[in-house]
């Protein structure tokens, strides 16, 4: 805390109170915006998820729709019947995509970062190349991959076979995983590269003097020292993968059992005006993301915002 301008003749409780007031004033616009675009929707979504639409006949014998408190009906409906199958499929897809893409992207990103770290010439060029997939809108990149994976597309030409990539089934899952890996593995590489660059060179020199081999140096020095950066990258990738929407929606389509994610399901229900089930699905997804983040931090001790702050 000493670094935060507390020194000198200006320090003291009076000044701290003054700064506190100023801080509240400066932060209030941000909190006002976040209250409207985050806090309100969350409270409203949870409220919506507890309401059900009812149909009945009024005095004139016309069908009228009403809303009433339905308790956990929307939630229990998600687990039963045809809707239950769809929800379970979406939950399975979401989990499958998250686990596979994050695993592949972490390994690939780490490998790419190590390569870029070694190369002295042309590093800037490669960093620029890495940013290109990041800059392309996901919806556009989904179209691009849809084209690559078309029946007569270049993927099948290269493979020399006719795979129906975006039709359905396991191939469609692969198509989503490949396209997602392309877009985000470079980004993981970029974050890891930043972590690699702060490792002092002397550590490696000392290890070399002690006769450590390359593999040993990697597992004993590089990996532990780059771990904080890597974990932050994995964490953000994981949360992003759990709410994946654009890529399966454009690459394969809406309501496709092979790729439908929880975000797609909630979106589909909401745009079809079934707000209660949509809100219940989105709320469960939110709970899932929060749980995943909590478990991740607990198990791996990810260096999150607060901790990193404290160390500076």
């Amino acid at each position: 805390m000493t670094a935060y301008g507390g020194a000198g003749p200006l320090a003291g409780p009076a000044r701290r109170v003054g700064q506190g007031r100023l801080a509240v004033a400066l932060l209030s616009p941000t909190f006002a915006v976040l209250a409207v675009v985050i806090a309100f929707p969350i409270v409203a979504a949870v409220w919506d998820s507890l309401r059900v639409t009812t149909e009945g006949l009024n005095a004139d014998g016309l069908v009228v729709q009403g809303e009433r408190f339905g308790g956990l009906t929307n939630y229990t409906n998600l687990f039963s019947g045809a809707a239950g199958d769809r929800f379970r499929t979406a939950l399975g897809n979401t989990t499958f995509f998250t686990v596979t893409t994050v695993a592949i992207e972490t390994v690939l990103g780490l490998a790419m970062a190590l390569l870029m770290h070694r190369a002295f010439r042309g590093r800037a060029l490669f960093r620029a190349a890495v940013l290109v997939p990041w800059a392309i809108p996901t919806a556009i990149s989904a179209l691009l991959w849809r084209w690559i994976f078309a029946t007569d597309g270049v993927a099948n030409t290269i493979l020399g076979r006719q795979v129906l990539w975006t039709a359905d089934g396991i191939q469609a899952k692969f198509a989503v995983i490949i396209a997602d890996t392309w877009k985000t593995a470079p980004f993981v590489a970029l974050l890891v590269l930043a972590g690699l660059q702060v490792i002092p060179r002397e550590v490696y020199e000392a290890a070399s003097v002690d006769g450590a081999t390359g593999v040993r140096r990697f597992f004993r020095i590089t990996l532990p020292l780059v771990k904080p950066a890597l974990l932050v990258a994995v964490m953000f990738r994981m949360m992003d993968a759990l709410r994946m929407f654009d890529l399966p929606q454009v690459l394969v389509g809406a309501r496709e059992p092979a790729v439908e994610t929880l975000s797609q399901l909630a979106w589909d229900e909401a745009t079809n005006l079934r707000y209660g089930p949509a809100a219940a699905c989105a709320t469960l997804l939110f709970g899932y993301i929060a749980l995943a983040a909590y478990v991740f931090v607990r198990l791996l001790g990810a260096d999150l915002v607060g901790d990193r702050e404290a160390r500076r």
Partner: protein
Amino acid sequence: MSDSTGTRRRRLSVRRLGDHASLVAVAVFCLGPFYWMVVSSLRRTQDIFDSAPLPSPVSLDNYRAVFQPGNGFVRALGNSLVVAGVTTILTLIVGVFAAYALARLNFRFKRPVLALIVATSMFPGSLLIVPLLKLFTDIGWINSYQAMIVPNLSFALPLAVWNLTAFFRQLPFELEQAAMVDGCGAGQAFRKIILPLAAPGVFTTAIITFVVAWNEFMIALAMVNDQDMKTANVIVAQFTGQHGFDQPFGTQMAAGVVVTVPLVIAVLVFQRRIVAGLTSGGLK
């Protein structure tokens, strides 16, 4: 002696060759699909399934098709520009103040506040879309720019605050203290000293925010059904060919190039700064 240095040199050059080969592989991996989009966009409709690495003959048919008045593509580009531009400006105006407070002022609950702001960027968009869709329907905002801009702030603002905080924090504290000793208030010190010095950081944040807002799809897809208000991403994804059910890939690739190239150029020009912004934020 000379023999052993020779071997070492040879081993080094082999290793360097391997490095170069792998770097080329990385570049091909990153740029290959983008290259394919550009090449495909330059083919004639009848050659679209060619798999030659270069289009022959080169044709601008697809670009002509994209800009046909009936597609509303120009209008959609304008919509994207308005939505992403306004989102960026609003985000920066609001975010700069918060970031200044978080980076330069001394107050209680600073860390929880920052953590809370960052955490808000992690909510699934589909959770926000349900109530916002309902609200915007009620107040007649469907098919309006604000229906896309306001929800966009939920993604852009936390990112911008986090990025700007990292930039503001790098500036030396003595500057402000000196200014305050000379009789400047905190507000004046901020306006006259910090803001000009932080301009590169603000600019970097602006680029990143703009890219993120330009790429947004889910909200734009849900909030707008009027053809004239759709953003470029949505219009392109919904292109239907003149021939009914077959997907007009050539046109879509051309449109994709038009939507993407300005960003790719910006990214290449400001590469160093963007990397600094992304990695200091440590966050998408």
